[in-house]
């Protein structure tokens, strides 16, 4: 039937001899792998109504007053330490901590009136910004990217939704953060990178066999498994068994797909690119996100931070274990500014920006009045979000806050409306219903929730 030699070129049942299983991937029966970026670019000429999305989740909650909604006229205990600067769009100013963003503002719109009414803990905002809902009644709603995965499926070998570098962990509330497929089921969970793309020896865990399993052995395992698994009739009528088979095939496709491998291979990016994005975890995640989108991933969620404890983040309470306000200027701000602007620039250059929404937001804003520790605390009453790409028009400001950035003064935007806007941008009809627990039909956004029309 088949012969396998451990240390010599392997022979396979189809009679082919392969030097390298990775090479074999492109020939494999399973691997309808994409023939690389070249042809991908050629394909891009074909009209494609699909819109992708990169969600940069600014875990911790950026202060609206120190970033995209400056209040220079407010008293010093409100306006904070940073000054506004002009952008390339007349009339729009941003914080001095974002000099590169200021140069591409024509591609980016700011929503300055985001707000939510739930408890002022990180977790609620994470849920609401990633799913459009607060989880109540035991219903765990799906992340927008998981809904997209369910509605549109995978393009080629690439998983439809990738989350990186890691899921949001403990941020104090002990609640789910809304980063799974929830009631849609594990099939639609994001592919989680679980690795730091800025690490020197970065590789995706479990994507490729460990070093001690040679390509020849890997191929032998695959053939043996196929032979042993055979066709036991008992499994034919089980949908889980069929799904398991499909998953193994998908796993093999991923493992052997040149496109998938290339997508995760940051070493082929020139140093200049890495420098532009910044060689930080977030910078390299954004660079990786761009590569993934170029190779067929539909939705990428990048969590800028995994927690808010003992790490310098947007969560500037001012005292340990949280972050001081100055970190915006010397660490968090530049980290974001470099990666974000490089990402927008690159997508714009290849034309992908018109088919890729780029979202950047946190879970809430911060209290306008600087606290005794010199920081700002949680404030879901008002904050700013950035949206760009896809059908989103750039260079606009939607909504406005009051004179101290405490509450929306004009056109308040709810988290459900943010979700509706993303769905609208992705081309998923807002009245789409998913089947929830106990067969309950659940709309992806509630009836009557409108997208932010001004952005389209």
């Amino acid at each position, binding site marked *: 039937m088949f012969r396998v030699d451990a240390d010599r070129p392997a022979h396979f049942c189809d009679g082919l001899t392969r030097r390298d299983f990775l090479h074999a991937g492109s020939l494999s029966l399973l691997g309808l792998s994409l023939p690389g970026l070249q042809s991908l670019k050629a394909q891009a000429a074909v009209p494609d109504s699909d819109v992708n999305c990169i969600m940069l989740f600014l875990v911790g909650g950026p202060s609206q007053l120190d970033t995209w909604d400056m209040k220079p006229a407010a008293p010093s205990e409100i306006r904070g330490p940073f000054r506004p600067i002009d952008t390339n769009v007349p009339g729009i100013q941003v914080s001095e901590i974002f000099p590169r963003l200021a140069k591409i503002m024509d591609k980016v719109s700011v929503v300055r009136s985001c707000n939510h009414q739930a408890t002022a803990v990180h977790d609620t905002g994470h849920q609401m910004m990633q799913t459009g809902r607060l989880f109540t009644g035991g219903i765990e709603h799906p992340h927008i990217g998981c809904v997209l995965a369910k509605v549109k499926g995978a393009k080629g070998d690439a998983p439809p939704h990738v989350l990186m570098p890691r899921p949001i962990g403990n941020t104090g509330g002990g609640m789910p953060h809304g980063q799974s497929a929830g009631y849609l089921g594990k099939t639609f969970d994001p592919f989680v990178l679980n690795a730091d793309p800025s690490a020197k020896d970065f590789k995706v865990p*479990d994507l490729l066999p460990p070093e001690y399993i040679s390509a020849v052995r890997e191929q032998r395992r695959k053939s*043996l498994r196929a032979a*042993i698994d055979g066709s036991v009739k008992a499994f034919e009528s*089980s949908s889980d068994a069929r799904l398991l088979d499909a998953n193994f095939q998908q*796993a093999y496709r991923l493992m052997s797909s040149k496109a998938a491998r290339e997508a995760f291979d940051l070493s082929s990016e020139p140093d200049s690119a890495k420098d532009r994005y910044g060689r930080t975890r977030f910078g390299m995640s954004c660079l990786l996100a761009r590569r993934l989108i170029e190779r067929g991933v539909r939705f990428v969620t990048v969590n800028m931070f995994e927690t808010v404890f003992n790490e310098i983040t947007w969560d500037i309470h001012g005292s340990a274990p949280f972050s001081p306000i100055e970190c915006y200027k010397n660490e968090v701000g530049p980290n974001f500014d470099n990666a974000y602007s490089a990402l927008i620039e690159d997508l714009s250059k290849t034309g992908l920006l018109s088919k890729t929404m780029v979202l950047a937001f946190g879970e809430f804003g911060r209290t306008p009045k600087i606290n005794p520790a010199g920081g700002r605390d949680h404030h879901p009453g008002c904050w700013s979000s950035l949206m760009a790409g896809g059908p989103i028009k750039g260079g606009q400001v939607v909504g406005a806050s009051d004179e101290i950035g405490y509450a929306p003064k004009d056109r308040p935007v709810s988290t459900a409306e943010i979700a509706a806007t993303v769905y609208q941008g992705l081309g998923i009809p807002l009245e789409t219903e998913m089947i929830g627990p*106990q067969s309950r039909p659940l709309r992806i956004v509630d009836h009557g929730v409108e997208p932010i029309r001004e952005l389209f």
Partner: protein
Amino acid sequence: MSRISVFALLLGVAFSARADDLSILPSSAVLDGPKVSQRFLVETASGGFFTGDQTANARFSIDDPRIATVSVDGTVSPVGDGATVLRAKFGDRIATSTITVKNFASNEPWSFKNHVLPVLTRAGCNMGSCHGAAAGKNGFRLTLRGYGPEVDYDVLSRQALGRRINKTAPEESLMLLKPSGAIEHGGGVRFSEDSLEYRVLAEWIASAMPRPREDEPGVVKVTAVPPAVRFRPGQTQQVTVQATYSDGRTADVTRWAKFGSTDETVAKVDESGQVKVEGRGEAAITVWFASLVDRSTISVPSELKDGSRIFAEAVRRNPIDEINLKKLASIGIPPSPECTDSAFLRRAYLDATGTLPPIEVVTAFLADVSPDKRVKLVDRLLQTSEYIDYWAYKWSDLLLVSSKKLPPNAMWSFYRSIRNAVETNVPWDEFARRVITARGSTLSNGAANYFVLHRDPIDLTESSSMAFLGMSLTCARCHNHPMEKWTQDQYYGMANLFSRVTLKDGERGEVIVSPAPDGDIVHPRKGIVMAPQALDAKPAPIESRGDRRELFASWLASPENPYFDRAIVNRVWRNFFGRGLIEPEDDLRATNPPSDEALMNWLVGDFRAHNRDVKSLVRTIMTSATYARSSDPVPGNEADTKFLSHYVVKRLPAEVLLDALSRATDVPTPFGGYPSGWRSIQLPDAQVANAFLSSFGRPERVSTCSCERSAEPSVAQALNLANGETLNQKLRDEKGAIARLVASTASDAVVVETLYKSALSRPPDEAERNRLTGVLAEATAGLKDAKETAAARRQAIEDLYWAILTGKEFLFNH
């Protein structure tokens, strides 16, 4: 008694009609008032089953046209008071029904509650995605599916400056202009100006809009007609709906009812109640009207050759088999034969103890020739500590034991109380009572932690109902349950059973749980305190003293409670068959009936007769022939996943799978803080970090729902098995089963045999043995150096075992 004959009694069907195999349904009707009409169905019947809807082919006539008229489709309308007979002629057969008309001269207006609201509900005005949404729609908010007639009345008659209703010119009312499309309506056209819907609303307005009255009769029962049919694919059936009111009146409410099918591959139903049979099997058509439900069963048997012999010869070991075979026979699905000994051994071990049988047990069991070895195996398994571990794990899932919200010593205390209850096989009602009425220190009485995990009456109401009744009451928190009979009033009555519990910190870091003398939760819509009441039990006086939780515990175990025993029987059943008789396992809605009602009823009766002994239930299930059927389908039962014709394969749960990998490789999985060799199913706590368990769907134990656990395969799982460290390190381990095999003098044939028996509880067949020993020989062919040869052989064995351990035969229970 069959459902038809029960129905016959209820509706007074004269079953002389069965003699000529033609019936009119209903067999008699009272039309009370001038507005009422009644639709009749003409059915052929054979062998006690309705077999065809002939309404469209029948010719109707009324004996006395001064009493009533009938349309060609069988709808009878009143003309004057009196009695007459409706006749339906089909071929040369005639069936009759008696018609009585009363109060024809009455000019009683349409009732808001019994006519106007059903119109609005049927037209979808008050559905959750329109004006029934919590926030309403465009400033117009109705109660969801009309559960609050008073509120809706005020909203329609008073709000929006009275523009919704124009008393002097009803046709100018917004509530007619909008839904009929005369002016723009975001929800589109819901009914036309010449529809009955329009007329009901217009006439109600014109009659000065009588408001809902307290003393108005309400719907007490809803009946689907016909109750059951036995059909062939392609046949159609109109299902009609009769409502019975508290004053004894009945009415045809088909037009206002909502229909659903429990299995659309068998039968589909449209919004008018027209059923079309799509395929073979059995489905229930559920009907909903005014928060009450009923169902009509559509059986579509396959034509089974030699059926009577097959079912006569099928093995019967206990009443489960008798009932199940009857069900299978009724739908023409043949049972698979009994499974092999090795399949039974592996299945029984995994299902009852979550553990893979050790290789010595496999060898001994297969060699054992005693005829009752399977029963003896079951009895042995029920006495093992693994049985205790496994079921303690299961009930810890149910009660959310976890250090996420409990300090470690309290978590352990909770776990030990559960494990102890399993070990002593405490009757299930006592188990529930210990949890529900727990008091004292959370460290000395572990069950008291239930009240630390669920701190408020709302959470306690919903979690307790999910855990012990298998029902979600969450909908009723904010409004009457839209598809069930549970009302918001009942919800807050139930919540008040849990409103008098206090927690205070003890001296040793524990929490002291005790009943409180006061504390009530207020009905948010009515602003009053509902008397404490366990769902449909009798309410207790608000002033009643004592621990109110006792009322709930007593109600759980009372014979009048139909849910408690069903819930646990269904959970245990699902453990063995991978699918509950009711599925999902904790969704015991009336609109989600069991796949075999008779079997459920027998199991519940047997469970009660055995004093709610879970172990006895387990034993009964495991010693049935139904449980021991092969997972290989036979022609005619391939597509069945519901009726137990064959054992449906199921992926091993995360913890069981990890333990099975550990046992098959003889390399334990390390868990931080636990001794080496500790197994997954012994973990008291879902917070113990393990990427494999998370990836394979271990529940987080955050909310009480069987949906927390996932057996769904994912790509991440496949990658984990292929490339992850968990399995690869177990294969490479220097002290594990593979290392020992390699170090021994075992021949390739013995190696293959050992791997198969360890992982799959069976020896390889001849072809497998030859093929795989060939692979092992091939791996070292031509190698001279001994060390090189040994290394190549080891790698080949690892790869072979990897292939076995990632195959479906291993990953699934079958």
